[in-house]
């Protein structure tokens, strides 16, 4: 019988992100519109997926994260939406400059830590860059806490420094599930209010805005 000391155990109190869904693609975007209906990409995970990613309209010369809006030139704006439910991912973009453009996207998705059981890792095969190879060449974000919060809730993390936080919000006005958040603000702007305030001890999900009825958050070690 092997002694316990003969077994190698790698242990951490902090989970490492597990990406369970990856997708890249492109769509012709009609510019000058107020935004087409989002394209729908089916996924078969069967549980709520939380997606993030990057997009470009100039073949990756310039990239944006999702829900980044940009005022450019004389008020022209880029805007984007990225959201997901338990069965679909929704992607859309708009550009007020006119004409058409090729909107390219690269997406990756997480499940909540409670939901990862039973999801085969083979779903993310295909790109060598995404494989988890734990080595000393890279720093892996350590997930301290994750969960769902309702507006008006304060989550205490007590890390003593401001952590990196990913937040998705669910709008009561759409069926798109959880999307990366937008229209946040420093200070009150047109009654929109601040959405998610992060400090060295806590995260406050404000209830000033009716834009979202719940949030999913992932807090990483600062």
């Amino acid at each position, binding site marked *: 019988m092997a002694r316990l000391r003969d077994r190698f155990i790698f242990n951490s109190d902090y989970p490492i992100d597990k990406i369970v869904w990856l997708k890249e693609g492109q769509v012709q975007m009609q510019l000058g519109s107020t935004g087409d209906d989002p394209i729908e990409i089916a996924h078969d995970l069967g549980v709520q997926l939380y997606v993030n990613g990057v997009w470009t309209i100039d073949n990756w010369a310039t990239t944006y994260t999702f829900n980044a809006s940009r005022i450019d030139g004389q008020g022209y704006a880029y805007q984007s939406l990225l959201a997901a439910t338990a069965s679909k991912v929704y992607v859309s973009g708009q550009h007020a400059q006119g004409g058409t453009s090729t909107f390219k996207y*690269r997406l990756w998705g997480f499940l909540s830590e409670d939901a990862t059981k039973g999801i085969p890792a083979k779903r993310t095969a295909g790109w060598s860059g995404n494989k988890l190879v734990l080595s000393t060449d*890279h720093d892996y974000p350590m997930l301290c806490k994750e969960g769902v919060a309702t507006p008006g809730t304060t989550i205490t993390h007590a890390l003593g420094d401001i952590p990196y936080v990913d937040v998705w919000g669910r709008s009561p006005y759409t069926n798109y599930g959880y999307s990366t958040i937008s229209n*946040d603000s*420093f200070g009150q702007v047109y009654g929109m209010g601040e959405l998610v305030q992060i400090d060295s001890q806590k995260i406050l999900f404000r209830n000033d805005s009716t834009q979202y009825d719940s949030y999913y958050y992932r807090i990483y070690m600062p």
Partner: protein
Amino acid sequence: MRPSRFILNSDYATLKNDAEGVVQLTVPGLVNIPAGGANVVYKATLQIGSPSAGLRSYVTSSKYNYALSSPSFFLACKQDGYDSSASVDISRNGLLIELRVTFAAGYGQATQYTDMGQTLTLHAETFVDPFQV
């Protein structure tokens, strides 16, 4: 020869953090845009990571005691004495991460922005492109 590196492997994908950096941008408390003028843009850049990679960030302000993690947001201010806002966005142009604050020009008229003087600090970490073949 003794291997110098420890490597543990899993089939699950993850985000590999390859760089982290901080950059500051000071926004003045008064911006005047003349009639027919263009938007006024302030920006600061940070060169880290690899192009088209993922980005996670947050921004703090000298005016507020909390941070925002949104990639774009608004700064409350006054425009010609009324409540208004400037737009803030974070983008990636090649290796440069840009933090931009844009004050929109008036529609053919002169306009003045006030009450928004502050220093923004962008904290950013980038990830190895998970779509790297």
